[in-house]
């Protein structure tokens, strides 16, 4: 099995020494791949060069990006050039020929695409046929208010074709220095990125993924810019996003700042594949991210843009979309004040305040770390983003005399947080935290009415959050939930001499399973829920059922039903073989694939218990299966199975599966898969009933 090591390396502009870790291990000099645009390599049309890629629909032969700064009048812009060449191997790979380039624009600032060029090459009768990308192969869509999409599709794409395209994007958004992704869903032979950054700008760079760099270099140089404007250096643009800064001279003037030329490349990068129980592929893809940390203009001191946690906290707390809202919630006073006297206990009061917010606010499904507008406005609309709702919750808790604080986090779909980087953009969500008298900390979210107070939605279960504190650094907060994926079944069945079963089942869903089942029940309704339950068992009949504690979120959701299960083979026999647990267990190993590349992330720990009491037909005894205890390494989990006979006519079976960790590493996959196999085999073991 291939061991993969997650590489997370910090590249800091301020430090002159080059990187550590995986990169320095790669000492052998790598030949930089170069191509001539418009001139394909004959080797790319020789079939034997693609034998190793026979599984792939297409292969990226060359992917090159270079970002540098240019002056537009007196404002700096980012100019990013891209050149891509792809070999199409199969018809399934035709999609790579259609490309979308999203272009952001806002308040007069924009991203623009220029110099779009492209060619398709096909070998026809031993000769290379070259077809140009025409403007008719391109289309511009106004996707949303702030996003345009330039789409183009290369002509004459066939099996064996090589396509290439290049374009340049100029951007006014210095904050939005585009990531470079080295890895795709198809294999990549060569992926290279260059960045040329003048001394005026300080970007933090973060490398992530499981693939090593083939090349990493850094060189200092001098750039030359001509400033065509009037006045001195100014900070341009009121909006933070436009970020335009530049030198303004009385007339055309040349400036020659020092620049740093960065150069990274990866070679033979495998395709990235989705796996079940994964947070997001974004967490695993080989990628380098850039964040503007500061500006250092001539004649000015260093202007920190991101920097420290303390600064992020201060910026957030003074921001109109965050801290500015938290203490401006007197409009909540009327609703909140009565709760203060009604609930003297802080935890109970917090639950009551949360309940109030849950009932007054509908989550619109969008996530952000800051409010979308004044909270009063959202409150009047009764609808908002996660930040709107949870900042409102914090404000309401404070109105109720409870000192709640905001905690930033990144949802599972948004990706893992790198704790070494004080970057606000790593986060896309905010929740509340309330210290309780007994040194407990209550984490609070009001976006999900189906969850009890103190339980975070599944999307938030992403390991750590960052507490935002006034005039302080703040700290990391563990988001690992104490609630589990919890399922309990209490089953009482009677078997007759034909092997037919009948009896009662009590199903209890709590923790995250409770929330998931409540949601499903809400969508389907009781009748359809039960219909679906029976559809998994061809010989089940459910004559009656009842759900209880459906809307008491702090209680387990209970389903009790009457069950009749017809024997799969008719007739009476001297011996009956029964697998009574099988229908109530998972049935199938959730880990169907033999191999795994990335961690298995359940978000929370798991417990699944089945207690089954079986009454035998008169005149029969049972041969009991052996009991079993199966442990995962390092206390990762345990499966316990027991079969006992408390009275001569009854058998009691117990099956308990516990997974103690919310996240298992890829190295633990094999044992996890085997653990489930053994557990399922015990659940499927037959009970032999013999006539005395």
């Amino acid at each position, binding site marked *: 099995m291939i061991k993969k090591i997650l590489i997370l390396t910090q590249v800091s502009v301020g430090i002159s020494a080059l990187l550590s870790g995986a990169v320095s291990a790669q000492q052998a000099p790598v030949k930089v791949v170069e191509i001539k645009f418009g001139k394909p390599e004959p080797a790319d049309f020789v079939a034997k060069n693609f034998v190793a890629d026979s599984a792939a629909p297409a292969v990226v032969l060359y992917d090159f990006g270079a970002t540098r700064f240019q002056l537009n009048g007196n404002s700096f812009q980012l100019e990013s050039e891209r050149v891509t060449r792809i070999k199409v191997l199969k018809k399934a790979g035709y999609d790579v020929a259609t490309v979308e380039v999203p272009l952001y624009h806002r308040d007069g600032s924009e991203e623009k695409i220029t110099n779009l060029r492209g060619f398709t090459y096909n070998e026809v009768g031993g000769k290379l046929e070259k077809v140009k990308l025409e403007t008719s192969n391109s289309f511009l869509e106004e996707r949303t208010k702030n996003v345009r999409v330039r789409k183009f599709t290369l002509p004459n794409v066939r099996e064996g074709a090589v396509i290439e395209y290049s374009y340049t994007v100029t951007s006014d958004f210095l904050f939005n220095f585009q990531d470079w992704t080295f890895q795709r869903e198809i294999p990549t032979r060569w992926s290279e990125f260059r960045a040329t950054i003048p001394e005026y700008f300080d970007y933090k760079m973060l490398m992530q993924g499981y693939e090593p760099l083939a090349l990493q270099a850094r060189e200092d140089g001098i750039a030359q810019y001509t400033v065509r404007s009037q006045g001195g250096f100014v900070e341009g643009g009121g909006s933070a996003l436009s970020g335009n800064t530049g030198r303004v001279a009385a007339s055309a003037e040349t400036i020659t700042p020092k620049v740093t030329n960065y150069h990274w490349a990866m070679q033979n990068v495998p395709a990235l594949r989705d796996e079940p129980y994964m947070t997001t592929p974004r967490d695993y893809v080989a990628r380098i991210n850039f964040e503007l940390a500061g500006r250092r203009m001539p004649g000015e001191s260093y202007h920190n843009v991101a920097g420290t946690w303390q600064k992020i906290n201060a910026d957030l707390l003074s921001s109109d979309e965050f801290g500015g809202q938290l203490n401006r919630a007197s409009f909540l006073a009327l609703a909140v004040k009565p709760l203060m006297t009604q609930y003297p206990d802080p935890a109970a009061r917090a639950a009551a305040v949360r309940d109030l917010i849950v009932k007054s606010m509908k989550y619109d499904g969008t996530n952000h770390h800051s409010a979308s507008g004044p909270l009063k406005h959202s409150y009047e609309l009764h609808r908002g983003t996660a930040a709107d709702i949870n900042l409102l919750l914090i404000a309401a808790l404070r109105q109720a005399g409870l000192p709640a604080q905001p905690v930033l986090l990144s949802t599972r779909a948004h990706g893992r947080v790198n704790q070494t980087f004080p970057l606000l953009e790593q986060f896309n969500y905010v929740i509340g935290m309330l210290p309780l008298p007994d040194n407990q900390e209550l984490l609070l979210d009001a976006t999900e*009415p189906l969850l009890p107070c103190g339980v975070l939605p599944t999307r938030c279960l992403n390991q750590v959050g960052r507490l935002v504190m006034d005039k302080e650094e703040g700290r990391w907060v563990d988001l690992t939930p104490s609630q589990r994926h919890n399922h309990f079944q209490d089953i009482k069945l009677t078997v007759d001499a034909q092997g037919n079963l009948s009896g009662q089942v009590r199903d209890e869903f709590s923790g995250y399973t409770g929330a998931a089942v409540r949601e499903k029940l809400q969508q389907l309704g009781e009748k359809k829920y039960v219909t679906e339950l029976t559809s998994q068992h061809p010989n089940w009949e459910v004559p009656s059922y009842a759900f209880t504690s459906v809307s008491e979120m702090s209680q387990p959701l209970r389903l009790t039903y009457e069950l009749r299960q017809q024997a799969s083979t008719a007739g009476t026999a001297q011996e009956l*073989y029964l697998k009574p647990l099988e229908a109530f267990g998972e049935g199938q190993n959730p880990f169907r694939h033999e191999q795994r590349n990335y961690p298995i992330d359940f978000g929370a720990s798991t417990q699944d218990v089945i207690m089954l009491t079986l009454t035998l037909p008169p005149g029969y005894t049972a041969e009991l299966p052996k009991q079993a205890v199966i442990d995962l390494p390092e206390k990762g989990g345990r499966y316990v199975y027991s079969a006992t006979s408390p009275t001569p006519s009854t058998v009691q079976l117990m099956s308990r599966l516990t997974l103690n960790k919310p996240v298992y590493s890829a190295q633990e996959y094999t044992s996890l898969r085997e653990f489930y196999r053994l557990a399922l085999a015990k659940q499927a073991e037959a009970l032999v009933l013999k006539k005395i």
Partner: protein
Amino acid sequence: MALPPMLLPVFASLTLLGSPAPKYPADAIAPALRENAHAVVRAYDEVVTVKSASQLVKTVHKVVTVLNEAGSDDYGQLVVSYDALNRISYLHGAVYDAQGNLLHQLRPAEVHDQGMGSDGGSFMTDLRVRYADLRQPATPYTVEFNYEVVSENTLFYPNWQPQSAEKVSLEGATLQVVTPTALPLRFEEQQLPAGAASAPTVVGSQTTYRWQLPARPAVEEEPLAPSLDELLPAVRLAPATFEVQGHAGSLASWQSLGLWTYQLGQGRDALPPALTAKMAQLMVTAPDPRERARKVYELLQSSTRYISVQLGLGGWQTAPASSVASGGYGDCKALSNYTCALLKAAGLPAYVALVGAGTDHADVRPSFPSSQFNHAILCMPLAAHGATPADTVWLECTSQTDAFGYMGSFTGNRHALLLTPEGGRLVATPRYGAQANRQQRRTDLWLDAAGGAKATVRTRRVGLAQDLYAQLLHGADPDEQKKYVSNHLRLSHFTITNLRLAAATTPQALPAVVETLGLDLPAMATAAGRRLLVEPNVLGRLSALPAQVGPRQSPLALPPASLSQDTVRLHLPTGFRVENLPEPTQLTSAYGTYTSTCTALPDGTLQYVRQLETRRPAGATLPPAAYTEYQAFRRKISQADHAQVVLMKNDA
């Protein structure tokens, strides 16, 4: 009610003075309408005004009370789509609390606008949506929307189906169509209660048609039922004559619709001279018409790909064949038109045909000529040639991998509209019966003494049964194929040791896919003392059908007829003998026949043979009561599919 117009402003200002009267309080909803409902449509009033042959205005007044959270996403928001030929003139909205007090009036800035390029799968499309979100945290609440769409695409008149999904009930709805008497309305009613339609009234030069629906309780989708589109009351509208972007046409008959579409594409079949010459050359090198057509199709499949383009009239008019020749791509119309041009140049006349494509797409309603299609294919009549009799070949021009002449579940078993110079003609596409939807499997199981097994499986799927596997074969790489197969094997625990998919053909020219699978099954048999219990039907089990909870409401719609054959050879571990073999099973019903046998062969192995042929009696749908009978049949099959062999360890 006719009021003197002068009085109106007075009323309006009066209501503005005090607080507005509550609207649509939730407690006014009858209990029967709350049952099984996430939402109640309080009013759905649609007015369609035909301005001229080329313009139509639709206004909608829609009021929905959302009863619980599960109804919020679908009914607390509104999405209205538009494009180059359909413009939204206004979209207003308001939301009321349970008592009917106004909570919020939608502001123009709260109406979002978005292009659909990301979702529609289209490369170029002018389709966009406007949407408004009025969802509330506390249910019940009521949303009210008013919007108007002006359409310059009168080929399509709106359809009216005020209750169109499960778990939503209806309090009442109206439809009114006002049209110049000179432009008579055509309509088709579905499942309307008595008295829903009123006699048309004529005032001056205008005729007005009216329908209304009384209260209706919520319905639920049931397994194996026709889609609710077909089961719920609806009025479908169509023009008699229309004009789109200066192209006038008539929907009086399929002939006239076909003629209009044909003429729209006329003169767009010119090919580059070199290509025409290459096609003409085929007449020499491939004298057999069928062979020649096959060569043309191969050329198409190897040199073009499908890219969807939906821009204005381009949604109905084909791009010129020359553009496909130069770019190597096109949408269904463009690729069909291009292939038609290629075939013509090769001396093979063919016709473009419109079809409603998709496995679940309802067939055309032949009695109501109107644009019911979403796809274009090609139909080529072949004259007799030598000993070969005359035949008709159908071609799917958007697929680079489909077998020549094969339609499959996407476009087979339905009607298509042939576009000929004389006009349209509704014809049937190829029929695929049980033999053209079959699966044959041979499994060898080598059992070990601990109950584990190694298996080799060879499955040959033909016709409709291979459609999905053909996509997997051509559209997915080996890793994805393995992932798919893994996710669909219903086994407790297994490891795939080998997987290979390969294309094959049958003598009837049906496509086939052969799957070779190797499996490690550590828990194939269950140990019970000295015995091993084995269910030999490892892979061929029919999935269960949900039990009927409560009385069945919908008709029964059966899947297409099919044939599946399984042969399993069980190789016993040494030291074991057979203690018990399952009895043979034979089941016969109106829905099919099932047989299974398990015998000991002279070489000491066991052979299990199972065959299931399903039928679709009496067309597509059966009365609701048939579900119980059908389910009983399926249950007996499920039971038989678990037939068990008991092996006994020999005494040492």
